[in-house]
Structures are given as structure tokens and as C-alpha cells.
């Protein structure tokens, strides 16, 4: 209900903000909930001189959708995630809230540090995998599919609790091998077009490739609402899209290759503030 109310407002408010843009101050040219979209001094060893959020490269009409949460269509999923958080599911008769109480407290900062090492499973888990691990083990509920509406809603809701916090994933200790694997995937040329992620997002960001304005391909806004998808989508869905475009066989959502790349990519964006749910075209 709340969702459709927002969607109705979308048009009116978007129109309103266009008029206001003429008098916008610098504070107005940031996405909602963050204080910066750049890291001017990247971590030691970064291949980038400056780390920049994908928001910076989008047209002002797309940006404006992320400047106010009422305009942001991704908030439909955040709201749905909030209600799922409190919904009992599974044979154990529990909801997320049964164990974690108030998400605003218990989940603050979690989304900025994902994927995280799981000591029991001896592997890193993405947010999706962590959520499913809670569902199957603690709630005795069915796992959600990676790109299911519930999963998108829950990942968006949980990560939204870290909005404005700097991305900071562990890449040492047991995570080191995974980050290195991710780096290898990132720099490997794939597909008939024979390109790596770095060809577009490191060597050529800021330039147009046909109609597309290339960003650094950062992950701080995911899950992201894409106008092209007309819905929220996961980071791994985006990975697949980029690989398909270069005529390669994409890895599967949740595959070790994509988990490794997610870790490495989060590290490349170290210090960028979480923007979930970002809006992109």
C-alpha cells in the first residue's frame, strides 16, 4: 500500500525537483543518505587515482531519482524487506526479528562489510547466502532464490541499514585467497569480444561507449534499481549482463567466481559510502 502511494508521488515530485534544480546547492547534488560520492585518497595499492560512485556518471534525471527516498523506486523493496523482517516463516516459528530485534541497530554496518568470512562453513558468504543460511538453519524455512523478490527486498532492507557507511571488506587472513581469485576473474579477458572488466571500468571510465557513460563499475549501490530492468536487481545479475555483452558465458549467480569477484570489487571501492538502493539506468 505504502509502496503504490510512493509510486504515485514519483512523477509529481520528480517534476517538482526539476524546477528546484536551478537553485540547488552542493548538498542537493548528492544521493540521499550519503555525505560523499568519492574517495579522494584511495587505499594503498589501489589501481584508481580516485574512487568514484556510479551515481556520478548518471544523467541528472536518473540522479534526481536517488536524491530523495520518496522519488526512489527502489524503496518499494526496502519497505517490503522491512515487513518480511518481522514476518514469521518456517517450522521454527521465527522471524528475523525474533533473533535480531531491531534491524536499525543490529544490522547497522553489516552491509558495508559483506561478503564476510563464515567460520563454520570456512568460506565467505554474501548477503544473500547469509540470509539463506539463517532461513534454512535458524528458521527452518525454505531458501529464497537469488533473484526472488523476497531476497531482493531483504538484501535491500538490510544493506539500507548501512547507508552512508564506508565499504570495508576483509581481504586478509582467510579472505586473501578469495580476493586474489576475484582479482584474477576481474582482469581476465573473456568472450568473443576479448575484454576484461578493467578494459571498460578501469581504463575507460568517464568515457562514452556508444550511448553508455562508463563508470568504475562499483558495487556500493547494490542491490540497485535499474530503469532498464524496471525493478531492483542483484550485483550478480549485473555481472552476468556485462559478461553477456562481451559475448562470454557468464558465471552463475552465487558461484564461487562471482562471490570472489564481489569481494574484490568491494575492496576496489573501499571507503565509498553504501547507497543502497541506488538508481541506475
Amino acid at each position, binding site marked *: 500500500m505504502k509502496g503504490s502511494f510512493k509510486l504515485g508521488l514519483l512523477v509529481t515530485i520528480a517534476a517538482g525537483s526539476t524546477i528546484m534544480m536551478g537553485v540547488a546547492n552542493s548538498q542537493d547534488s548528492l544521493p540521499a543518505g550519503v555525505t560523499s560520492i568519492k574517495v579522494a585518497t584511495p587505499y594503498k595499492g589501489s589501481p584508481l587515482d580516485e574512487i568514484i560512485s556510479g551515481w556520478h556518471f548518471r544523467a541528472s534525471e536518473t540522479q534526481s531519482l536517488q536524491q530523495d527516498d520518496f522519488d526512489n523506486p527502489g524503496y518499494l523493496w526496502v519497505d517490503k524487506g522491512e515487513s518480511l523482517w518481522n514476518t514469521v516463516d518456517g517450522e521454527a516459528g521465527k522471524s528475523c526479528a525474533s533473533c535480531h530485534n531491531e534491524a536499525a541497530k543490529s544490522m547497522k554496518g553489516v552491509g558495508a562489510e559483506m561478503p564476510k568470512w563464515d567460520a563454520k562453513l570456512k568460506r565467505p558468504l554474501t548477503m544473500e547466502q547469509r540470509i539463506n543460511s539463517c532461513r534454512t538453519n535458524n528458521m527452518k524455512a525454505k531458501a529464497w532464490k537469488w533473484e526472488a523478490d523476497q531476497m531482493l527486498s531483504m538484501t535491500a532492507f538490510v544493506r539500507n541499514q548501512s547507508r552512508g557507511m564506508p565499504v570495508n571488506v576483509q581481504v586478509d587472513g582467510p579472505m586473501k585467497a578469495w580476493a586474489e581469485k576475484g582479482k584474477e576473474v576481474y582482469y*581476465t*579477458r*573473456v*568472450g*568473443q*569480444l*576479448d*575484454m*576484461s572488466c578493467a*578494459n*571498460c571500468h578501469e*581504463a*575507460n571510465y568517464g*568515457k*562514452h*561507449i*556508444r*550511448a553508455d557513460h562508463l563508470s568504475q563499475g562499483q558495487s556500493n549501490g547494490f542491490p540497485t534499481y535499474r530503469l532498464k530492468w524496471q525493478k531492483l536487481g542483484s550485483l550478480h545479475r549485473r555481472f552476468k549482463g556485462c*559478461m*553477456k555483452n*562481451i*559475448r*562470454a*558465458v557468464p558465471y552463475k549467480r552465487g558461484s564461487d567466481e562471482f562471490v570472489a569477484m564481489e569481494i574484490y570489487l568491494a575492496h576496489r571501492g573501499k571507503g565509498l559510502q553504501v547507497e543502497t538502493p541506488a538508481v541506475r539506468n
Partner: protein
Amino acid sequence: MMKANSLIAGCAAALMTVMAGSALAEATKPDMVKIDDNKVKSSLTGIKGNAADGKKWFANRKLGNCLACHSNKDMTSKPFHGEIGPPIDGVADRHSEQELRAILVDSKTVLGKETIMPGFYKIKTGARPAKKFKGKTILSGQQVEDIIAYLLTLKE
């Protein structure tokens, strides 16, 4: 009448298949093309390139898609020219036909290993090529020749 028509159409189709077959048979196989001194000396097909067709392949998103990366003043009517490579204007003043052929066949041997530009007539590509494109070149030998013919018209 119907019968005669379809008979003629059938013959024409058969004839075209034979012709296409022989043109293909004559095209140098991608792994047999020799790049020497940044040049490929002779035509890939022995058939003169058609500049008007080449112009189409240059812009076509599923074929050359050259416009994705190279702007082109000869195509101002088309929107969205890329900025990744240098503008293509006047390319014929900078490169001979044989150099252009080498750049198109396997850009990396001429422009350097690091280039983002794909090789359009080579079999060895990146890892995990999509099934649909596996073992196939991006352009046919004749399409490469057509694009070269087109590029040779771009003088300043």
C-alpha cells in the same frame, strides 16, 4: 505461373548458395592470415570490398559496432558516437589499406596487447566465449574487406 516462379526462385537460391560457398572457400582462414610488419598484404577474399556495405557494418551494433568506440563525422545523422578510441575521421591519411587490414584482423598485434579493441577476424578470443559465437569470427572476411573499402574513403 506459380510453379514457374518458385522454380526460378529455387534455382536462384541454389545458385546463390553455390556462389556464397565458393566465396567462402576462397576466403583465407582466420588462423592462416599472416600479419607482417603490421600489414596484411592481400585481400582476405579476393573480392573487392564494397564501401557502401562497409559503412553499414561500421555502424551496425551486431557487426563492427565501430561507432561504439570511434566517433565519425561521416555519420553525424546517427546518435551516440563513442569516445573510447580515436575519432576515425581521416583514417585513410594515417594508414594504408594493408595496415587497416591488419588492425581489423587482429588489433592486438598492431595496436598493442593491452588495447580494448577486439580483433574482428581471429578465432582465438577471450575465455568462455558464448556458445553462439564460439569458433566464429566477429566479422566475415568479406565484411572486413567492405569496412576497409569504406575506411579508405575517409580522407581529410
